[in-house]
């Protein structure tokens, strides 16, 4: 069929199974919006209030659904506003396709109105990008974009389309992309690597598993659980691995990293075999690399060859898709238990419970804690909600204490640490999993970075629950100032507006709670509400998140206070 480039873009999206996209119109993308108007019964476009919101919404959608998120924007400032979302999706391996309009081909390089070199700008923060200048390129390039975004280690792809290419006609034939010369998305683990890994695992006395998002991205949760249960090895999560294994599982021993649990961090430096699956040894996980698990033989299950030996030298690298590798290694693993070793984790937990957790979850002093709000949320949601968090203290507290019984339920900005992520990501998460409860837990700082997305919630009646944990500070920075900068609180005190009134302005039912005896009722009311709901929890202003590995310290130097 002979159609315009703009219409072809819609047909490409439909052929890729896309039925929902996020975006913001503007001059250079208007032909596409005109087609979106015509195709609105097949393809829903959600107008966010800022292009950054469109990217985070697309990310939230992708993270809970496993599908590719799509965001669309105009040229110039529309395109540059996508950059934070692209960078976030790149470092957190989120499949996303962004489409930007661009000035007409004859205007490229003339400093035309709203012209910006978005290909140059987005190169370091995309898995792939490409500028289309002729309509005839559209089907092949968009097919390639979706294939690259979702295959192998997923990531963001940006396709920039000049306005003339949107207007021109082409003979439209769509073929899905199944391979690209020069690109090997998923290496296959060699038999040798699997048997070497199995031999190490079978003879280990104190083995320890750290699992990351790779388990979720490969949809290998079942294979992972089988592996954990058969081998009897204690397993801890990275922030992005959280929810791959239910938090109540007896072999799930908690979180590693800067604000992770005491046992997993301390015992990283005592285990004899460290089995890492779909994670990348971020500095927030490892602390000082010079003293990280030096006593251990390291097995790294990883899809991206560039991650092998990047930060931590491995003994055995098992390259490939986590699901496939775990399935293939399972028959080679001896059934085992490690009761004494597991007890070691429990003993560390007891210490942490007495010194930190008890006071976080069941405080007796005046002033609400973030921890107790999360504990009550767990009780009211039955550990079934999708939890979307922003960045900072509330994020670490939520990751430490939120209960999860299902995978793809923890949506947070891990690698980039993007404040402002949660509110738009929660919109995407709710649309990606409409049957599930979605609770955005946000600090008062990050909330105000993308607060305009309340407009998107209002317009679409998106039933997200927003729980702002308000401590009137940029809490994590304030904590660092207290601990490492002699309490000089430079620009971390926030004078906040009346958040309840703001929510009311968007016709979102809202409440504020600051008393302990009203907290459970307030959260229960939020969870019972059918539509969108805003709850402000006024928490203790100068509470610190512990345990904590100070920057540059070893994981075994984790501080409990």
């Amino acid at each position: 069929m002979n159609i315009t480039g703009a219409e072809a873009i819609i047909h490409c999206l439909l052929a890729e199974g896309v039925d929902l996209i996020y975006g913001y119109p503007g001059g250079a993308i208007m032909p596409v919006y005109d087609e979106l108007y015509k195709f609105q019964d097949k393809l829903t476009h959600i107008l966010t209030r800022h292009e950054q919101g469109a990217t985070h919404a697309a990310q939230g959608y992708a993270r809970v659904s496993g599908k590719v998120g799509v965001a669309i924007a105009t040229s110039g400032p529309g395109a540059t506003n996508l950059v934070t979302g692209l960078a976030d999706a790149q470092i957190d391996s989120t499949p996303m396709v962004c489409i930007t309009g661009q000035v007409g081909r004859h205007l490229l390089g003339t400093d035309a109105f709203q012209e910006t070199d978005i290909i140059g700008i987005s190169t370091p923060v995309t898995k792939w990008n490409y500028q289309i200048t002729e309509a005839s390129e559209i089907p092949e390039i968009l097919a390639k974009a979706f294939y690259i975004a979702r295959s192998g280690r997923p990531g963001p792809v940006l396709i920039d389309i000049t306005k003339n290419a949107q207007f021109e006609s082409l003979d439209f034939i769509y073929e899905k992309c199944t391979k690209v010369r020069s690109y090997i998305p998923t290496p296959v683990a060699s038999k040798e690597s699997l048997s070497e890994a199995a031999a190490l695992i079978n003879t280990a006395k104190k083995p320890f598993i750290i699992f990351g998002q790779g388990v979720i991205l490969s949809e290998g949760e079942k294979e992972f659980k089988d592996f954990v249960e058969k081998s009897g090895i204690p397993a801890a999560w990275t922030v992005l691995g959280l929810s791959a294994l239910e938090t109540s599982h007896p072999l799930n021993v908690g979180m590693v990293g800067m604000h992770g649990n005491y046992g997993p961090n301390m015992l990283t430096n005592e285990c004899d075999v460290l089995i890492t699956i779909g994670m990348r040894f971020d500095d927030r996980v490892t602390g000082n690399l010079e003293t990280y698990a030096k006593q251990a033989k390291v097995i790294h299950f990883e899809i991206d060859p560039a991650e092998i030996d990047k930060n931590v030298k491995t003994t055995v690298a098992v390259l490939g898709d986590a699901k496939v590798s775990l399935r293939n290694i399972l028959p080679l693993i001896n059934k085992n238990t490690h009761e004494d070793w597991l007890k070691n984790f429990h003993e560390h937990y007891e210490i942490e419970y007495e010194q930190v957790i008890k006071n976080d979850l069941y405080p007796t002093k005046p002033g609400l804690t973030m921890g107790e709000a999360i504990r009550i949320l767990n009780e009211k949601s039955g550990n079934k909600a999708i939890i979307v968090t922003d960045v900072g203290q509330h994020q670490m507290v939520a990751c430490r204490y939120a209960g999860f019984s299902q995978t793809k339920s923890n949506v947070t900005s891990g690698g980039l640490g993007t404040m402002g992520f949660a509110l738009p990501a929660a919109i995407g998460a709710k649309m990606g999993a409409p049957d599930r409860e979605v609770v955005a837990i946000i600090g008062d700082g990050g909330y105000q970075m993308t607060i305009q997305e309340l407009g998107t919630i209002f317009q679409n009646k998106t039933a997200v629950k927003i729980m702002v944990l308000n401590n009137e500070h940029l809490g994590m920075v304030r904590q660092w100032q207290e601990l490492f900068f002699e309490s000089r609180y430079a620009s971390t005190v926030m004078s906040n507006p009346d958040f309840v009134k703001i929510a009311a302005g968007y016709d979102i039912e809202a409440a504020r709670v600051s008393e302990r005896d009203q907290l459970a009722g307030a959260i229960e009311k939020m969870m019972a509400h059918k539509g969108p709901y805003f709850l402000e929890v006024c928490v203790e202003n100068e509470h610190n998140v512990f345990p904590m590995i100070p920057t540059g310290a070893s994981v075994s130097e984790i501080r409990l206070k």
Partner: protein
Amino acid sequence: MENAWYTISVYSENNVGLLNRISGIFLKRHINIESLNVSKSEIDNVSKFTIVVFTTPKWVHNIAGQIEKQIEVIKVFSHTDDEIIYQEAALFKVNSSLLFDEREIQNIIKDSNAQIVTVSRDFFVISKSGRRSEVDTLYDQLKPFGIMQFVRSGRIAVSKSEMQISSLLKDF
């Protein structure tokens, strides 16, 4: 770990923007590219980047991995100087009168195995290819006479061991 010279050979598709993508990998790590050459390779429609860096083995491993990860990159090899045959090319533009007035210049050219590319009334051009040190020696020898213009290319290199690309391309 000690810094050393490494030659990174990148076989890739010939696409707009790939140079930017590859140079960005060095930029992000604050590592200077000492020399860069892009040309066709022994395979039709496959380009070859030859990049020279002075860094640690760990960074070379990291950089090579990140480059190979780029969608349009087919394969990356990194070599130390003793694993490759390498050359650079240089052009010297010198005032023609010197060729006739200074006997020594003729000897320098002869001894250095350089070639005279062209001679005109005003200037002549000497081409010299070889290792960096040979080019530098010629430069030092000509410098006292006055060099009107000088330019040196990036390093080009072939490896002593095989760089198997054709078989790899069949597997894609």
